[in-house]
């Protein structure tokens, strides 16, 4: 990936800021719109629900009043049916005396124009009897049964008498008055001897109207009959315009009750309608109630403004916040872009350095290996020449001793060259181990055997303490070399008549081999860090042969065996090294 230029970050960050700003503004706008919509809907629903409840409560009260009135009228008619004179009038051919006979019984049902209406007890404006076939029985002159305009009474006749009280609505005009809607209740008079419908009593009432509860909204209500709304409230609403708008609704979908919102010149109305259970002979009628929605619309309007203002404030705050946020959010992004650029540069540098180092290391190792090889031949030639000189036997004693020393020195040079060659192979990572299971006891025995061949200056005791069947994973040559180096050191840096102790223990996965000896003197603490470095002799090897490669080689070899070599103890009494090997897999055969 191409690294962006420094100016690129700023442009990208600015774009990010603008995008963030736009998203935040959009969110604020949409939230405000949603709040406005929900609030308006909520107000409308709440209003409609409240009005519907009022309407239903009013209707329930009205129905209950009607039911009470029906019960009262049924009881009245039952009493009438038991009266001898009523029976006589109906059964004995005395129909012309019927109204006279019933006058006293029904007097209190009639509205008395002279008396004010008792509150809550709406009286009938007229009553009439129908005979058994449903025809009207005209009242006798002089009997007060409510005076209907001429020709109006015929509207009361029915084709058949109902079995139970029925309610209906009729447009009737009373004498001297205009046409008005009347609630008509028909109650059959049942014979108490043979259950026959003897006659029926018909009463005309001013329709019961919905009463608004105290504190409830003022509404207009009326009865819908024959395609016209007959309002029972005056002055609040234009009946004609309401009727026109209600007609299609009432005549189609609202037959089972429902609600409608209509806009009339005098405002918006919420209209409820419910069918009134009229009896079969009467035309269907609906109780209609219209609530003005002006107040609700005003509330919605005020709320709309509030939400818009609040939305604007929130928008401004949001803009400020989004600017701040985008700044805060984009800063780390910018930083991140910058950082990653720097990081890439640094890594590239490091990689380049590593490559150089690796190349140099490889070159050094190759050089070391080549140098060692090139040295081996001249040393061999030198030794061969010296040995030939020695074998000639022409040298005197002093010369012979010198040649002896020179030959010994060539061995030392060879040994150093071998070690250097091994180390350079280790450094170049060219040493490949052939892991086998090496028996520790055999290994120690072989190394000790080699060491015993060396000239022993002092009588040194070797103690051994390890399980006899312990096997370690490694290549025998190199593990022997490690142990050989350690034991050689233990012998060289020992006291006269001192001790060497070789011990091993295992935890099942690793083998801890310790090689300790009685100390000539302790390794100084500041030298302990350096004893594993090449050509370092810890400041104590002035008169002890060695060239400071042994411990370093031993540690490198231990490490390529996936183990380690550490100085475990060094004080005036005792020096002890510890080598860690891995335990050999049990099934691996002994090499």
């Amino acid at each position, binding site marked *: 990936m191409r690294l962006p230029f420094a100016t690129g970050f700023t442009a990208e960050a600015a774009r990010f800021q603008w995008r963030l700003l736009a998203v935040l503004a959009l969110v604020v706008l949409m939230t405000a719109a949603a709040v406005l919509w929900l609030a308006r809907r909520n107000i409308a629903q709440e209003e409609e629900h409240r009005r519907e409840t009022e309407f239903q409560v009013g209707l329930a009260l009205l129905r209950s009043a009607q039911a009470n009135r029906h019960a009262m009228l049924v009881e009245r008619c039952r009493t009438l049916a038991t*009266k*001898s004179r009523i029976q*006589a009038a109906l*059964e*004995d*051919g*005395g129909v012309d005396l019927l109204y006279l006979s019933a006058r006293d019984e029904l007097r209190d049902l009639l509205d008395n124009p002279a008396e004010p209406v008792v509150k809550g007890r709406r009286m009938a404006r007229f009553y009439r009897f129908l005979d058994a076939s449903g025809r009207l029985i005209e009242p006798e002159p002089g009997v007060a049964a409510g005076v209907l305009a001429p020709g109006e009474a015929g509207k009361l006749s029915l084709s058949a008498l109902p079995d139970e009280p029925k309610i209906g609505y009729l447009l009737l005009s009373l004498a001297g008055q205009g046409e008005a809607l009347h609630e008509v209740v028909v109650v059959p008079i049942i014979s108490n001897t043979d259950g026959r419908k003897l006659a029926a009593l018909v009463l005309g009432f001013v329709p019961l109207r919905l009463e608004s509860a105290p504190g409830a909204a003022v509404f207009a209500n009326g009865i819908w009959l024959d395609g016209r709304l007959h309002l029972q409230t005056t002055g609040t609403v234009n009946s004609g315009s309401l009727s026109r708008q209600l007609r299609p609704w009432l005549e189609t979908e609202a037959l089972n009750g429902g609600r409608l919102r209509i806009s009339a010149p005098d405002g918006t109305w919420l209209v409820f309608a419910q069918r009134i259970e009229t009896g079969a002979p009467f035309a269907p009628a609906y109780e209609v109630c219209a609530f003005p929605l002006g107040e609700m619309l005003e509330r919605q309007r005020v709320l709309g403004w509030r939400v818009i203002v609040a939305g604007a404030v929130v928008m401004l705050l949001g803009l400020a916040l989004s600017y701040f946020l985008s700044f805060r959010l984009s800063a780390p992004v910018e930083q991140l872009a910058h950082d990653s650029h720097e990081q890439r540069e640094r890594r590239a540098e490091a990689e380049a350095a590593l490559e150089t180092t690796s190349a140099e290391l490889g070159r050094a190792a190759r050089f070391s290996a080549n140098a060692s090889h090139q040295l081996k031949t001249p040393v061999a030639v030198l030794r061969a020449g010296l040995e030939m000189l020695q074998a000639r036997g022409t040298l005197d004693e002093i010369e012979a001793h010198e040649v002896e020393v020179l030959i010994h020195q060539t061995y030392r040079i060879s040994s150093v060259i071998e070690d250097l060659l091994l180390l350079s192979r280790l450094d170049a990572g060219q040493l490949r181990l052939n892991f086998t299971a090496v028996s520790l006891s055999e290994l120690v025995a072989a190394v000790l055997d080699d060491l015993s061949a060396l000239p022993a200056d002092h009588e040194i005791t070797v103690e051994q303490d390890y399980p006899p069947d312990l096997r370690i994973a490694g290549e025998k040559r190199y593990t022997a070399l490690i142990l050989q180096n350690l034991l050689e050191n233990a012998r060289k840096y020992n006291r006269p008549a001192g001790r060497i102790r070789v011990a091993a223990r295992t935890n099942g996965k690793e083998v801890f081999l310790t090689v300790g000896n009685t100390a000539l003197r302790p390794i100084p603490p500041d030298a302990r860090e350096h004893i594993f470095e090449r050509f370092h002799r810890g400041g104590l090897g002035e008169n002890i042969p060695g060239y400071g490669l042994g411990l370093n080689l031993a540690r490198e070899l231990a490490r390529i065996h996936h183990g380690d070599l550490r100085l475990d103890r060094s004080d005036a009494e005792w020096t002890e090294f510890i080598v860690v090997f891995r335990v050999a897999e049990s099934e691996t055969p002994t090499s």
Partner: protein
Amino acid sequence: MKNSPVSVLLLTCCLLLSGGFANAATIEGRVALPPASAATVVNKRYEIVSTGGVVATNPPLAVVYLEGEFSTPAEIPAVRVEQKDLLFVPQLLAVRVGARVEFPNLDDTFHNIFSYSPAKRFDLGRYRADEKPVPAVIFDAPGLVVLRCDIHEHMRGVILVLATPHFVVTDEAGNFRLTGLPPGNYKLKAWLNSRTTLERTVELKEQSVLRLDLP
């Protein structure tokens, strides 16, 4: 044959009335009465029932009478319909047009007898047993008069006003016997209830006994 005291009285009455005719004829027979209503009347008092607007007695009785032209007597003896134990006794009475019927109250409570029947409308008002003279009504037009008491709604009685002196109330089996009848051609009628009256044309010969069942 088992006659009620009322019918015995009426028969006697008829026999007395027709006693002047030496060549009088007799009709006897039986009217097929409708079955009695399910509710049997234990104390034998007849009850006036109105079923579907039809007034009849229960158990059913019929009034058999001879229709024709008969001379009007100067005076017709008065008959009584008592009010006893909140009932009219008898509950079915046949009288000749112009007859005067007295309505004594034999109960120790008020009664108020009235009738809305077109044949005779009257209202005797409330009175008690000690009312003197005994309230009476003269039935001057033929027809059916249903008696009621304004105070006791169940009380009902029937007076059948007839334009003939020859009539008799059958027994519960429908048997009747009309005696002292002048010879001639007549219509024999049997009133069963306010809707049903059976009739048959008869020719009566001197001192004959006509055996006739209706219908």
